[in-house]
């Protein structure tokens, strides 16, 4: 029997979801072909505005050609299905291609509604829907000073954000009396307006545009029905969407009165083997303009084709998002259409927070809620609604600010049924999370990787964390962050103790807060924290015992007990004279020499007694320690930037030198690497570093929390268009916050991934100073920098300390068991075992 043939018209998010559902079910095998009129396969339209903060089309992609090819999916781009022949079960495309089908799935999505205004087709008038649209808007932005968005709804405000990012004076023109009229009530809409205006975006409500004509000061002038007008260079229409039902309409599928392809609970149209899913579909006279219901429809249609029973039963339209950095959420019904409903309102004009909770007549169930300025309660309120749960006795606590007792404001996640959807972006239920935890996920990072929960919009991260903690507790894991058996505190708590109590020695710490003698875990940790805050010489008598062998001898111990010598070569810049000194030293002491990934030079094989002699020569030649032995700032890698490179935009070399000299020696929970690229060609690979800086025409773009190594991770764009002064402030705060709150041996990536609120939270702390810590963090960094010393220089001036640098306390002999051999003309440790040479073809 031939495989069933499925044709999918449209490769947007929902069309792709449908295909992916069939791919991941290994029990079925279909011949699938999909068409897209766009030039790209499915991408994440929800994150579309990320395009303006540095995300590329590749970053937004949900799939790629390789994935489709590997799974036998045929795809045709840039070709539109124009004829639908339901009698003969075939479709015809614009290019004349005829494709027969057994099942047809229409996932044609929607198109932006452009109000019928004279002049709406002028050159710099755009819509906001596809990556191509965004590219057009960007192009217009280059020749514009002023931009207007027509439409103050959810997408309109996103478009406004895009115009702000392009550096335009931005206006929003809305027909209704308030912003986000569908989702918000009056109070919420008003506060949102105030907050948006405070960001410099001008809002004009109750304006109906009548025509777009040539302007005097700007390219265009928009005339309004009330006689007023506005001049602008660019216009973006974002006045709602309309279902893309043209094909169905022309070829006699049943269409709703106001558009949309009518479907039943199985997502079938009035023709049995033709399905419609996503924004083009009309269910119960409703169009669903969100991705989660579209995904649900995709799953229902796929299930029906496979012969399984699953029905579409409508979807919740609650939504939470960040618009221009402002948290906004809307849950359930908020326009007072529920008879007898009553409400609680919390309005803080100082902090600019508005929360309204609407409850049923008897006060036991939630009807809806509006949150502006602080949407932390979203997860809890949404679950109460979706699972029809009974409200606590005093529902007001749900929206009142936390009084320190976190439990009071929430509800136990234990109360949620296993079927409760926690992450609607990826449709992850509480049951999915609990089984992932049972299978071994113990951290937020693990759980995100395993289930994808909270990797979409991130709105559910707090809730996901609560489920994680509650599951770990119920599985008998004590959620134990104790550093080791000697300290019943986490690294973060120890850091607080040391900082607040001004503790300067391990003795003090152990005596007052610990037990036993300490160990190889708590001692170096304490050593690192003490150094981060007080930055005393690490070989002071009372710090010596804390140092791992690397810090203890200011070198990196190698497998045979010898050490490597790594002088600082800031930014990888070195004079020929210094290079010659390195060569001479290496030659004199027969040191194996290698250039590192961090643009400096490692000299291997130095014995204890040789270290001081070697370093004396290096310091005399103007070198200083490279801190390669410490958990501290390693290198700031750099390209030559605009000093030499014909593409360079800014002087990456000077910035790299300044940064390396500023942060050198900073002891931290783990090593820290930086890189600086002088243009977006990114030759310094800054996006793979803890801190990466890339020069652009508008200033420095700052990426954070990247790393190479075992689990490589690209950095996230943290802030863009920064001047050097702001940049340094942000880095100061970022690093000290990391020093203060990370776990032992936790790189910045894992630290951020495990942080509740993730990158957004980090931005709130570092950029918006939500915790009111910025001054303190900067001051701490200042202190650290003031106390910087080259540890080798200090050591060489101290004869007592130098005594430690010999193999025997009672003899000048050296370790007679060290053995070396030559490989490629250099000395390496003798290989004790016979090497097995693996033959590779």
């Amino acid at each position: 029997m031939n495989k069933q043939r499925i044709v999918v018209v449209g490769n947007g998010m929902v069309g792709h979801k449908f295909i992916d559902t069939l791919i991941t079910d290994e029990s079925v095998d279909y011949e699938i072909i999909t068409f897209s009129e766009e030039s790209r396969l499915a991408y994440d339209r929800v994150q579309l505005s990320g395009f303006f903060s540095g995300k590329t089309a590749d970053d937004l992609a949900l799939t790629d050609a390789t994935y489709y090819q590997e799974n036998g999916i045929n795809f045709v781009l840039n070709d539109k299905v124009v004829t639908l022949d339901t009698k003969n079960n075939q479709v015809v495309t614009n290019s004349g291609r005829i494709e027969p089908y057994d099942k047809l799935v229409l996932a044609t999505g929607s198109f932006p509604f452009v109000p019928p205004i004279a002049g709406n087709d002028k050159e710099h008038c755009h819509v906001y829907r596809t990556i191509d649209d965004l590219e057009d808007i960007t192009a217009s932005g280059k020749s514009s000073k002023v931009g207007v968005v027509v439409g103050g709804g959810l997408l309109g405000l996103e478009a406004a954000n895009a115009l702000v990012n392009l550096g335009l004076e931005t206006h929003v023109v809305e027909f209704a009396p308030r912003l986000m009229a569908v989702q918000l009530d009056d109070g919420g809409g008003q506060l949102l307006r105030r907050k948006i205006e405070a960001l410099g975006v001008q809002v004009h409500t109750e304006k109906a545009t009548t025509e777009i004509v040539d302007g005097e000061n700007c390219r265009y002038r928009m005339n309004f029905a009330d006689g007023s007008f506005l001049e602008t260079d660019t216009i973006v229409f974002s006045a709602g969407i309309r279902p893309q039902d043209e094909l169905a309409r022309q070829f006699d599928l049943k269409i709703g009165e106001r558009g949309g392809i009518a479907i039943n609970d199985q997502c079938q149209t009035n023709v049995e083997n033709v399905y419609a899913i996503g924004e083009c579909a009309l269910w119960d006279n409703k169009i669903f303009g969100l991705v989660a219901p579209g995904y649900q429809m995709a799953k229902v249609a796929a299930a029906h084709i496979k012969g399984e029973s699953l029905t579409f039963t409508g979807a919740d339209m609650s939504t939470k998002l960040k618009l221009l950095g402002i948290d906004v959420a809307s849950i359930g019904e908020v326009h007072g259409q529920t008879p007898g409903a009553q409400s609680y309102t919390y309005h803080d004009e100082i902090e600019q927070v508005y929360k309204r909770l609407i409850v049923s007549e008897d006060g036991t169930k939630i009807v809806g809620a509006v949150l502006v300025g602080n949407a932390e309660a979203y997860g809890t309120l949404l679950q109460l609604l979706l699972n029809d749960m009974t409200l606590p006795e005093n529902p007001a606590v749900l929206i009142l600010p936390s009084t320190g007792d976190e439990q009071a404001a929430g509800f136990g996640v234990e109360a949620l049924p296993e079927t409760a959807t926690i992450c609607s972006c990826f449709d992850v239920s509480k049951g999915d999370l609990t089984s992932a935890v049972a299978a071994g996920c113990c951290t937020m990072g693990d759980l995100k990787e395993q289930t994808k929960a909270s990797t979409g919009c991130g709105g559910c991260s707090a809730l996901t964390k609560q489920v994680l903690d509650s599951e770990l507790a119920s599985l008998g894991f004590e959620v134990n962050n104790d550093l080791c058996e000697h300290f019943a505190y986490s690294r973060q708590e120890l850091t607080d103790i040391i900082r607040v109590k001004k503790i300067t020695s391990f003795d003090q710490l152990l005596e007052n807060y610990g037990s036993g003698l300490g160990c190889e875990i708590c001692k170096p940790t304490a050593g690192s924290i003490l150094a981060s805050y007080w930055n005393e010489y690490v070989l002071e008598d009372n710090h010596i015992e804390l140092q791992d062998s690397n810090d203890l001898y200011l070198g990196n111990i190698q497998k045979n007990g010898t050490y490597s010598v790594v002088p600082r070569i800031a930014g990888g810049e070195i004079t020929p004279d210094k290079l010659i000194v390195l060569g001479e030293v290496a030659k004199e002491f027969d040191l194996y020499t290698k250039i590192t990934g961090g643009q400096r030079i490692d000299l291997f094989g130095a014995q204890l007694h040789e270290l001081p002699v070697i370093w004396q020569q290096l310091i005399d030649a103007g070198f200083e320690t490279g801190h390669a032995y410490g958990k501290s700032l390693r290198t700031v890698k750099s390209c030559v930037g605009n000093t030499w490179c014909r593409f360079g935009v800014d002087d990456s070399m000077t910035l790299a030198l300044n940064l390396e000299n500023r942060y050198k020696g900073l002891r931290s929970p783990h090593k820290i690497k930086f890189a600086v690229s002088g243009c977006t060609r990114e030759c310094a690979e800054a996006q793979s570093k803890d801190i990466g800086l890339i020069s652009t025409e508008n200033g420095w773009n700052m990426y954070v929390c990247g790393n190479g190594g075992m689990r490589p991770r690209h950095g996230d764009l943290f802030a863009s268009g920064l001047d050097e002064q702001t940049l340094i402030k942000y880095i100061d705060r970022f690093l000290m916050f990391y020093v203060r709150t990370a776990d032992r041996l936790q790189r910045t990536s894992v630290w951020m991934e495990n942080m509740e609120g993730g990158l957004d939270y980090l931005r709130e702390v570092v950029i918006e100073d939500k915790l009111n810590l910025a001054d303190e963090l900067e001051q701490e960094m200042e202190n650290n920098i003031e106390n910087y010393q080259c540890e080798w220089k200090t050591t060489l001036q101290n004869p007592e300390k130098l005594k430690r640098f010999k193999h025997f306390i009672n003899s000048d002999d050296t370790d007679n068991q060290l053995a070396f051999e030559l490989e490629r003309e250099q000395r390496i440790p003798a290989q004790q075992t016979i090497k097995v040479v693996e033959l590779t073809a």
Partner: protein
Amino acid sequence: MSQWFNICKSEDLAPNSGICAQFESQQVAIFFCQRNQDLYAVSNFDPIAQANVISRGIIGSTQGETYVASPLYKQRFNLKTGVCLDLPEHVLKTYAVRIEAEHVQLQSIG
């Protein structure tokens, strides 16, 4: 009777860390744990890493047992018995050690 030999001055000991001594053509790691005023001496050779590095390890305790963690791969060795806590088939040779008249002394085995 076995004899005691002076190795170094007691002030040469680094508090809560180790030193290495040459003694009867062997390498001996001597640790002075200031917190409980104990002195320990074990072989300096790490049988797992196959290198003479034990004296550069960190002193720690677990359940009241004092140990040194090797600086290379961090296996812990009980300082009294020499037994490796992580891989008990490995045992460091132990030596008798004391402080006498401000000198650290090791006892000859011979």
